[in-house]
């Protein structure tokens, strides 16, 4: 991590010294999930894709987390399928950073499930590998406890892939999917599924119809409007509920010196009128 990020992280983590962190295995679990899965102290994130919590973008992720938590409060929806219309729109980054935002609350049980069977990316960001990959859970009948990895500091469980599978028809068998989702929902309060693009694969359609809803990630200045509309139509046709959209990687066109004067210049009213 760079000096800029470590400075912020130090500000965050200075309340808990490293000596205390290293010796916390003997202490009593602070969170409900601690001990249920393979537990690590912290994820070794990919520095280029991690967002500093105390930055403006971290605040934007907290806003997203708040909007998602609103669904849990009002409608009891706890499982969200993150997808996009095309590839490379930042689904995995958004999912992991949103999970970090959820994990700030120590009482909430959060899970990040990597369901992108073709191009799994969660393991690359979090550098977390369980005893079994999630594809084994879906096909070979491995247990979720063998797959998940829990971080004490980030307070969420990661179900990562170990290898990419070429064929997804077996893994997406209805009974298995429904069983696994039910098992996950029985354990976690918030489950974030990282899936593949809508327009090229079927995972988001299969998963979205059996979970609470779908969140469509759109990359600014890259995704075409027609692609978004077509993905929306695909989701409706598959019976998925589109909870909302997330605009990712929005560049700021105003110079920094101006941008800093007004706090949260681009956080306009639309983010709060989500419903």
């Amino acid at each position, binding site marked *: 991590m760079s000096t800029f990020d470590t400075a912020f992280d130090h500000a965050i983590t200075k309340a808990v010294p490293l000596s205390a962190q290293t010796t916390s295995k003997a202490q009593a679990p602070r969170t409900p999930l601690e001990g249920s899965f393979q537990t690590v102290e912290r994820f070794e994130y990919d520095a280029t894709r991690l967002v500093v919590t105390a930055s403006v973008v971290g605040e934007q*992720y907290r806003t997203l987390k708040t909007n998602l938590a609103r669904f849990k409060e009002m409608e009891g929806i706890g499982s969200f399928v993150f997808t996009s219309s095309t590839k490379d729109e930042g689904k995995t980054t958004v999912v992991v950073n949103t999970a970090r935002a959820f994990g700030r609350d120590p009482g909430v049980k959060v899970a990040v499930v990597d369901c992108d069977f073709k191009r799994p990316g969660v393991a690359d960001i979090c550098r977390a590998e369980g005893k079994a990959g999630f594809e084994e859970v879906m096909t070979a009948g491995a247990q979720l406890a063998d797959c998940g990895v829990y971080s004490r500091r980030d307070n969420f469980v990661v179900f990562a892939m170990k290898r990419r599978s070429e064929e997804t028809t077996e893994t997406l068998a209805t009974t298995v999917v429904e069983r696994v989702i039910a098992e996950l929902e029985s354990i976690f309060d918030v489950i974030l599924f990282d899936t593949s693009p809508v327009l090229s694969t079927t995972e988001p359609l299969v998963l979205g119809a059996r979970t609470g809803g779908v969140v469509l990630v*759109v990359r600014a200045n890259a995704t*075409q409007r*027609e692609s978004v509309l077509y993905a929306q139509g695909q989701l409706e046709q598959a019976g998925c509920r589109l909870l*909302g*959209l*997330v605009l990712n990687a929005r560049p*700021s066109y105003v110079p920094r010196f101006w941008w800093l004067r007004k706090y949260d210049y681009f956080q*306009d009213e639309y983010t709060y009128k989500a419903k």
Partner: protein
Amino acid sequence: MTATRSDFRDYIRVAFSRGWWFAFVTLGVVAGISYYSFVRATKYYVARNEILVTDKYAGSLPKEIASSTDWITRIRKAELDFKRPVPARQTIEEAVGAVRMTLSESDVLSMVDSFKDKMKLEYSKEGGFIRLSYEASDGRLAAAVLSLFVKRVLASAVELQVQELNTEVSTLTALRDSLASQVAASERRLDEMKTVAPELKLTASTMAMLKDSRDIKTMPSTEQAVAVFLQLQRDIIGIDSDIADICEQMTTIAGQIKEQPDVVPAKRKLETMPAVVEATRRRDALRVQLAQLLANSTADHPMVKEIQAELKSLDAFLVSAASEATVEVVYEANQVREQLKVKATQLESEAAGLKERRVKLEENKEQWRKKLDEMPAQWRTARELTLDYEKKTDNLSLVTDDLVQAQIRRGLALDQVGTYYQPQWELTPVPERYTKPNHIIHLMLGVVLGLLMSFFAVYVMEFADHSVKDQRDLRAYTKAAVLGVISDYNQLKAVARRTPFAKAAILKTYLLALAFVALAGVVAWADWRWWPAPQKGQTLPAALSSATVSNIEQAMKLYTSQAANLEDYRSAEGAKVEVTPAIEVPGESSPQPMLSE
């Protein structure tokens, strides 16, 4: 797709996302307009004048002008097309006078020579205008230089013509002289031949034949001499035949003389005479009447006596008639004989003459044969000399005609220089005051125009770009809630870390503004430095820059060296080639008002 309502933040986004497009397009347009304003635009202190070339110049214009196809008709068409009102113009006389006050004629002529490259010659597309334009520091100067240039072009064209004609005349003169000497020589030889000709002792017929020809140039050739010889032979044969005819006639005449009787019988003669026959018939009738009377009546009847008297007279007549007839017949017989004798003597003399002539002809024939054997070459040379003389005389007359025509043409060409070709001027109005392009205005115009063009380009690009821009875009198109907006974290990180790229990204705005300011400053400085605003009332001498004056001095040196050669040429040829100014210098009595300052 439903259209989104544009917002001010959209303009901000577009302005910052396509900022470089705005900058580059605007800078490009500003640079182009500045280039036009400083380099291509009409410079100040420039007068452009037109010349309406008329058909009077057909012969003396340079070839590139004169060779344009049917330009005279095009000029007339253009004159019909250009029915424009004649603007208030400054006359060329005033212009030339204004120039002359400060520069002499030779100076201006030298400027004409030195600034030939600056002269622009273009054909108007509408019609047949040949537009000569010249840039000078003053309109009057430009007009004067233009007029003198045209005059000089015409004069040089005529000079070239005169030079060619001079060479033509000299060659023709030499040719004529040589031909004349040749003609004289051949004439001399022909005279010698003429003196020789009488010594040939030609016969009368040959001499007559020769006399029929007017000149000695038609003297008989060898063939003709042979013809004369043959003619002589034919004459001899004809004379022989004549002699034969005469001999025959003589024999017949001798026969006739012999047949001619000495005495012709009278009865026969009387019976043939009608008066005698009538008298005899009358006598017989009277005798019958008398016998009847005597038988019927007495002898005393008055009729008897009358009849007897008449019978008596008839008898007397018959008797006398018989005697007379005898005499006449004798005379006739003698006369015929004498005539035949005379004829015979004539024929004899004629035959003798013919024989003499035949002898002469034979002698002549012998002489001609001798001459023919001796002098065929002399006759041939005489004939050739004659023909040569004739040819040379014709050539001489032709060459003389050419020479005369060339001399006439040269005279005409010399007349053209001074009087015949007066330029017809069609001048654009000469500017009264100095003008210059307003560079600042041009710069501002470039900024406005460039911004407009870049706005248009960016609008097109935005219109073609269908990518999602912001959350408003998303919400408008999908009608779904936007749960979150995540900024570009890498961009913010780069700015926060003060990377060089981020610093440059911040600086580029300042640099862009600085570029515009610098460009404006450069334009303003150049405008002030190189395009000084002329003062009010500034006149021609002050407007002439030092560079122009030095050019004029160099051109004067060149011109003086060239003029000496020209003068030598003119004096040597004796041709009065006077390059008079196109426009007369106004007299001293009318001072130029424009030079009062």
